[in-house]
């Protein structure tokens, strides 16, 4: 073989902290553009906040008796008058966790099925950035969803948000690490297991039963309450109800915020560790390229 060409030895890539951030930004932008190009999200955004809580609200209305006589029981158990807002917030947080499990949980799996996961994995970008990057647009779309939900609750169900918007946002901020940490761990497990519907159903079932999305956990049997205390969604739901529906202010949610901070550290770390475990395992087994 004879060649007079000078062989290349170095690529144009110049890795540094900024280029790493730019790569993370590129993943976010890509995910956001793809999200916008499937227009059905627009319909879900307006329909789901109404449909899902509606059946619970109607059931509650039926069970509250003539002239809402049973509401005194509800007031005694929750300290709140507005059962509609109570149910709407519980079901919305449930939907948030559910959507995160499906969207973040299946983000890597969808890339794998599409065939693009390998081409991302072949680049020198920090691999956790793919998961982190796909989480950010999802979070943005969820904030849109939560905003639309709040507006629709007021307009359709007549919910009166008497609490503080800023405290509600503070609780949401404190909730993000737990909700997304679980999603990240889940995404890594889905890549390994290839299928995880059963796990999604289990997690959302646990949240639905133990975290009191439509009822106070004080009415649960004694053996169920300790389980509820180990699920971050219990505190998220309680704190958002307190922050947005009551005027009790910061003292009413301080305890929840502290616990959510601890849960957040745990779930984000757990999500990161599971991702690293999956990444190492995939290099041994070739799981990234398997459909």
């Amino acid at each position, binding site marked *: 073989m004879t060649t007079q060409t000078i062989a290349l030895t170095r690529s144009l890539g110049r890795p540094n902290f900024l280029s790493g951030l730019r790569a993370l930004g590129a993943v976010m932008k890509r995910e956001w553009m793809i999200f916008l*190009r499937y227009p059905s999200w627009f319909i879900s955004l307006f329909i789901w906040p109404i449909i899902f809580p509606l059946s619970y609200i109607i059931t509650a209305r039926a069970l509250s008796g003539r002239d809402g006589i049973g509401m005194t029981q509800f007031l005694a158990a929750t300290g709140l008058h507005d059962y509609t807002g109570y149910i709407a917030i519980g079901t919305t947080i449930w939907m948030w966790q559910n959507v995160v499990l499906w969207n973040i949980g299946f983000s890597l799996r969808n890339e794998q099925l599409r065939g693009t996961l390998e081409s991302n994995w072949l680049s*020198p970008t920090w691999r956790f950035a793919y998961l982190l990057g796909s989480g950010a647009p999802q979070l943005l779309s969820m904030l849109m969803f939560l905003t639309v939900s709040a507006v629709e609750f007021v307009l359709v169900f007549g919910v009166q948000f008497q609490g503080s918007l800023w405290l509600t946002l503070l609780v949401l901020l404190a909730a993000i690490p737990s909700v997304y940490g679980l999603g990240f761990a889940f995404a890594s497990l889905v890549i390994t297991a290839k299928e995880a519907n059963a796990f999604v159903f289990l997690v959302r079932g646990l949240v639905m039963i133990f975290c009191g999305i439509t009822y106070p956990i004080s009415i649960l049997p004694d053996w169920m309450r300790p389980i509820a205390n180990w699920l971050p969604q219990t505190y998220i739901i309680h704190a958002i109800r307190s922050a947005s529906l009551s005027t009790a202010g910061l003292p009413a949610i301080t305890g929840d915020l502290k616990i959510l901070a601890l849960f957040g550290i745990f779930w984000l770390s757990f999500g990161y560790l599971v991702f690293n475990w999956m990444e190492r395992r995939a290099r041994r087994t070739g799981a990234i390229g398997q459909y």
Partner: protein
Amino acid sequence: MTEFAIEAKQLVKKFPARPGTGDKKAESESSRAPKRRRFPFGKKEPKTMFTAVNGVDLQIERGEIFGLLGPNGAGKSTTIRMLCTLLEPTSGTAQVNGFDIVKQANDVRRSLGTVLAGERSIYWKLTGRENLEYFAALYHIPQAIAKKRVDELIERMELKERANELVEKYSTGMRQRIAISKALLARPPILLLDEPTLGLDPQAARRVRELIAELKQEGHTILLTTHYMEEADLLSDRIGIIDTGKVIALDTPEGLKRRIDQKEIIRLELTGWHDDLADKLKSIAGIENLTTHQQGEADLWEVNMHAQNSRTALPRIVESISGNGTRLVNMNIVKPSLEDVFIHLTGKALRD
């Protein structure tokens, strides 16, 4: 900087075999596999291992096009996946651009441009330009250079008119050009091209072959796998033939063909082929490596065989195929091609 662009020493990759596959090769290795841990209710079966790559040695020089050929399941994809850090070898070592594939995986990725899954490796819901801008960021190309590079590649791939359309509206050939552009973005010293012309129409495939030849001129080292022998013959400086996880031959295309220079290739075209004929032909003295394949959907078969001496074999061949509804349509004695070398070495055609 090391002398070789890619150097692999005794690369081995074993996977756990799926139970019930009846894989004899895998089963034969079970005795050597590590025992699985004990459980309270009894001992688990020893894990059965399947060896996909079994001690591959490769030395690819800088600036050369190296063709890696092998039938399906021979181990070429696993080898490529180890070299581009998607897989970790079970044992052995490899260096890409002087970087260890396990210990310096990120440096290896920075040195490589890869076309692995072709059109599936890019986002169909993004435009061609958006795809390239996205991957330029992933490869940490400075923004100003990236913009120039994306424009340059779009121009070079003749996609300027369609660059802002979604990839889902592209033809297969156009998608493949975006996938190749993605590999070229960072102008990496080494390119791994896995079946770059698969599924392309003849014109698009020719354009890709021309491009590969140009890339060599520009100083890229290219590791190419292909199912098309003519392509490997035309483009490769050297070819490695891999079968059952081992490199069984490595030489220039001419060097490989010289190995069976003393043999003649008899090519028949006939109708009314039946399996008994294969046994009859194989029993003729001096005939070996018989392969057949049906041409299109008509009852027309191409039969190739290697002969020590075609003059002595031909009368017996003609005699064997007469009668029983078989009709000889065409017959040629041809020079050995790379495909014949492959059949000679592996006992099967590349498409098998």
